[in-house]
C-alpha cells in the first residue's frame, strides 16, 4: 500500500466517523438539512481555493462561518424554520460559485477529492476530528434535550441560544472538513446517511452513536478503496456505499 493511499484512508476514516457522530445530533427536528446548504455555501470558498491553489477547507471555512452567523441571526429574528432559511443561503452559495469557478475545476469543488491529500492536511484532519469529538461529548446531552424540547431545556436552565451557537460552530468545522472528502454538494449526505442508517438499527443512544461512527468511517474506507480499483471519484463512491448501508439497514429496521 502506498503512502498516499494511507493518508487518504486515515483522513477519510476520521472525517467519516466524526461526520457520523455529529449526524446523530443533526437528525433531529430542525438540523438535518443544515449541513447541506452550509456545504453549498462553502462552494464559493472552495472555488477561490482551487483558483488560487490553497487548502479547500481553509477557503470554505470563512463562507461557512458567514452562513452559520446568518442562519443563527435568521433563527432569532424570524419564525421561519431553519430549513427554509438554509435553502435561501444555499441558492445564493451555488449561484456565486458558478460565477467564479473555472469549469475544469468544477468536479473537485462539487464532489471533492481526498486522493491527493498531504501529510500536513491529514494531521490537521486528525487534530480537528479529535477537537470535534471532545466538543460534541461536552454538549451532547444538552443538545439532545434542546432537540427534544426547547422549553424543557429552558426549564432546566440551559442557555439554549449559546448551545445552539456552539453546535452550529461544530457543524461548521465539520462541513469544512467534509468538503475535502465529498465536495460541496454531498456534505449533507456524509452527515445524514450514517446517522439515518444507525437510527434504523439502534435502541439506545450508545448504539446510535457507535453505529453511526462505524458506518461513517467504513463508507469512507470502502469508498476510497473502491476508487483505487475503479478510478471513479472517491467522494461519490463513499456516498453510494453509505447509501447501500442505509438501504440494507431498512431490512433490519427495528
Amino acid at each position, binding site marked *: 500500500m502506498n503512502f498516499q493511499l494511507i493518508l487518504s484512508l486515515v483522513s477519510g476514516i476520521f472525517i467519516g466517523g466524526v461526520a457520523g457522530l455529529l449526524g446523530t445530533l443533526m437528525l433531529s*427536528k430542525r438540523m438535518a438539512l443544515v449541513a447541506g446548504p452550509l456545504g453549498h455555501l462553502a462552494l464559493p470558498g472552495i472555488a477561490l481555493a482551487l483558483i488560487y491553489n490553497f487548502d479547500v477547507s481553509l477557503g470554505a471555512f470563512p463562507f461557512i462561518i458567514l452562513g452559520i452567523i446568518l442562519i443563527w441571526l435568521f433563527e432569532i429574528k424570524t419564525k421561519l424554520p431553519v430549513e427554509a432559511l438554509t435553502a435561501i443561503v444555499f441558492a445564493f452559495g451555488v449561484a456565486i460559485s458558478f460565477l467564479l469557478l473555472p469549469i475544469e475545476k468544477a468536479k473537485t469543488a462539487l464532489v471533492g477529492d481526498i486522493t491527493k491529500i498531504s501529510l500536513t492536511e491529514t494531521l490537521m484532519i486528525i487534530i480537528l476530528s479529535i477537537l470535534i469529538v471532545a466538543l460534541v461529548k461536552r454538549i451532547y446531552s444538552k443538545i*439532545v434535550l434542546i432537540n*427534544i424540547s426547547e*422549553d424543557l431545556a*429552558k*426549564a432546566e436552565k440551559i442557555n439554549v441560544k449559546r448551545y445552539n451557537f456552539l453546535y452550529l460552530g461544530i457543524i461548521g468545522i465539520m462541513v469544512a472538513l467534509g468538503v475535502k472528502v465529498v465536495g460541496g454538494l454531498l456534505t449533507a449526505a456524509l452527515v445524514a446517511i450514517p446517522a439515518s442508517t444507525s437510527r434504523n438499527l439502534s*435502541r439506545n443512544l450508545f448504539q446510535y452513536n457507535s453505529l453511526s461512527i462505524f458506518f461513517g468511517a467504513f463508507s469512507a474506507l470502502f469508498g476510497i478503496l473502491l476508487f483505487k480499483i475503479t478510478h471513479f471519484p472517491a467522494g461519490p463512491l463513499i456516498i453510494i456505499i453509505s447509501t447501500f448501508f442505509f438501504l440494507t439497514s431498512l431490512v433490519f429496521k427495528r
Partner: protein
Amino acid sequence: MEKDLILEVKNLWVELDKLKVIENLSFRVKEGEVLTILGPNGAGKTVLLKTLLGIFPYQGEIIWKKGVKIGYVPQRLPFIKNIPMSVKDFFELKGISETEIKSILKEIDLEEVFEKGIGNLSSGQFQRALIGWALARNPNVLLFDEPTAEIDIPGKETIYSLIKRLKEKRNLTVLLVTHDLNIVYKFSDYIICLNKTAICQGKPEIILTPENLQKLYRHEIKFYKHTH
C-alpha cells in the same frame, strides 16, 4: 412574602408576539398545596406555567420562595421519538446516576422499562416517565401541563393517584393545568379559573359552581358536585 407561601404572583402581564396572553393576574400558593389552573383552550394556561418557569418574559412580579427547586412535566414531547433513546438515556440527560434512576423508576412503578426504548412506552408509561424525570434532583414544586391529556380514563386515575402519592411522600407543592373537572374537584386545594385573567379563584367546593364555569367557558357546562 409570608412564611408559609412558596409562590406569590402579583399583577402578572404576559405579552407574546404583541398579543396579551395574561392580564393582571395575581395569586398565591402555599407550601404543600395542590393548585389547579382551569380554563378553556387559549386561556393562557400553558403560557402561565412556562412564565412561572422563566421561559417567557413578563411584567409584574413572580416570587418563588428562596432555594425552591422546580420540576416541570410538559404536555407532550413530540420530537422525542426522533432519537433512539432508552429510558435510562433519557434520565441520564439530567445528569443523575444509574442508582438514582432506578430508585425513581421504582417510585413510579416503572422499574421494568429501564432499558426499554422511550418510543416503545405506552402513553401511560410515558407520562409516568415524564413525571419521574421531573422528580430527578428532588424538586419541591412540580408543574404539570395537562398530565392526562392523552390517556384513557383508568390511566388518568392512575396518574392522579400517583401524583397524590408522590406529593404526600415527598411533601411537594403541585401546580397543574387541566380540563378534568371531576378529578380537579377531588384532588385540588385551590383553583384558579383562568381566561387571560383570573375569572375566579378559591377552594374548589366554593368556586366550582355552574355559574362560574359558565362564565369561564362562556357556554353551558353541566357539572354536579360529588356528594361522596
